[in-house]
């Protein structure tokens, strides 16, 4: 009896706060998405699915959907590739534990930076007139490159910053995971004269399948919240070439006349995409690792 009361009083407050806040935001977004509320006027009416209908015909929304998809693929794949390649490289070339620790410390620094700070740091580096990167490319004979002002380049320039933060962070995790693997299968493969890359492609990476998938999931969902970085670096520009879903929702809901109902419809769609992806992958991981 006394135990039940303890369990109740420890769980109830935390979970009721979470449930209420989650419910308020989801229900609120659903409710406003079928209204025509804007921040300028206090009164509003029921408009049914009009907002959703308009979204499907909104070029800017479809563009944001496309940009978000590209952003997802580039940042998730980029971070994982960097992590796999670098962790294997360090695992193979650096034996001393102290050096490895120093490398890990250096690689952890970027991910700890606030996104706003990382964005500023790289905007400064990318600057065509006084940035370090353009100075270096200048030494190599390339003219100043407009990393953030060129519509073709801007999204990838921002993605580099994201991979700089997360790819290096995942490298540390992958390296730690590699270190915990049992040595026997690796040594057996070495006895069979397997090349180093073969050992990792066919022995260690398959053993790390489950954690790599979880990392991909974490990154996939994290990449959906690209707002901070892109907002500070390009603000969605030039034009709409770096405008992801959350950026457009923000622009529509807060900046451009405050069409909050329209933005609500957008955030409901975003929520839906996130939930579907997240649930599917979560189930997938459970099944695979079980």
């Amino acid at each position: 009896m006394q135990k039940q009361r303890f369990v109740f009083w420890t769980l109830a407050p935390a979970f009721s706060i979470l449930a209420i806040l989650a419910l308020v935001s989801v229900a609120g977004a659903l409710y406003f998405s079928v209204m025509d509320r804007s921040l300028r006027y206090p009164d509003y009416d029921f408009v049914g699915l009009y907002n959703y209908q308009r979204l499907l015909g909104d070029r800017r929304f479809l563009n944001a959907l496309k940009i978000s998809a590209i952003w997802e693929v580039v940042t998730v794949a980029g971070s994982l590739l960097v992590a796999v390649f670098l962790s294997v490289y360090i695992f193979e070339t650096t034996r001393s534990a102290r050096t490895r620790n120093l490398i890990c410390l250096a690689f952890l620094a970027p991910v700890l930076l606030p996104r706003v700070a990382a964005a500023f740091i790289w905007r400064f580096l990318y600057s065509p007139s006084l940035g370090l990167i353009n100075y270096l490319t200048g030494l190599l004979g390339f003219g100043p490159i407009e990393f953030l002002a060129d519509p073709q380049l801007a999204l990838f320039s921002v993605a580099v910053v994201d991979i700089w933060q997360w790819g290096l962070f995942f490298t540390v995790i992958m390296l730690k995971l590699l270190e915990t693997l049992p040595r026997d299968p690796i040594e057996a493969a070495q006895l069979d004269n397997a090349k180093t890359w073969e050992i990792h492609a066919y022995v260690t990476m398959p053993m790390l399948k489950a954690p790599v998938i979880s990392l991909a999931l974490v990154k996939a969902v994290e990449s959906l919240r690209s707002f901070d970085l892109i907002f500070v670096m390009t603000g969605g520009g030039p034009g709409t070439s770096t405008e992801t879903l959350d950026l457009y929702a923000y622009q529509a809901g807060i900046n451009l006349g405050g069409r909050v109902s329209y933005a609500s419809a957008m955030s409901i769609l975003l929520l839906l995409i996130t939930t579907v992806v997240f649930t599917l992958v979560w189930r997938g991981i459970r099944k695979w690792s079980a």
Partner: protein
Amino acid sequence: MVSLIRRTVSRGFLALMILIALLPILWTILGSFKKLKDIVTPVPTLIFTPTLENFTTILQNPSIRDGLGNSVVIVGVSVLLGALFGIPAAYSLARHVERKKDDLQFFVLSLRFMPPVAIAIPFIIIYLDSGIYDTLAGLILVYLISTISTVIWLSVPAFERVPREIEEAAAMEGCSQAEIFIKFALPIAAPSLFGSLVFTFVLVWNELLLALTLAAENATLPVVAASITSLGKEVPWGVINASTVILVLPPLVFIGLLMGFINRMVATGRK
């Protein structure tokens, strides 16, 4: 000879990687001590007379000072409340819940992954209507979603690692559940719990979108920093660098802790 070349090349490559990881940060720190004329040069300068001008500009700027103060209060209170509600819940989840455990953990994790825009948009309307828009309390309230869920998510494994025998022995001695939790489980799990609080702190300290939408005058440091670029005509790069440094310092202090945290997570993840 070949192996020597190989070793040098691989050393060089690793050094380059470390440089790529750290140089942007170091360059910014360096920039924060430069006068504008040392920044706006065609050739990057390494030798210059350092100045504290940028930092004094920042600390005398009322909006940045307020941002810093607000950040400290908002982040502090929301992490504290997150710990107060989250840690006991995590303990019960780890020890006393069996059937519903997966569902509850899934719920907590799904909150962690909720896109901030989906929280920001409905809350801005509700806050405007109810008059708590642009208040510290309002921001703390929405941050509770992140802090409580993150604290729970990261603290459950910490409590699962506490040896059951100790708690069972304490129960035999006649300790109540609350006593077992406070006197035994909490102190043993404390180092890992501290790590989870640090992680939560970094997360909220770095947050921009919610603060940007739900506050105007009473925004946090990231919001204020993000708005500096639009001050005046000339981009004050020195000042921007300096405010970046101030923004970066608190999370970076915890880098060693994060490292230990990763080590423990990886170790328990693969038993």
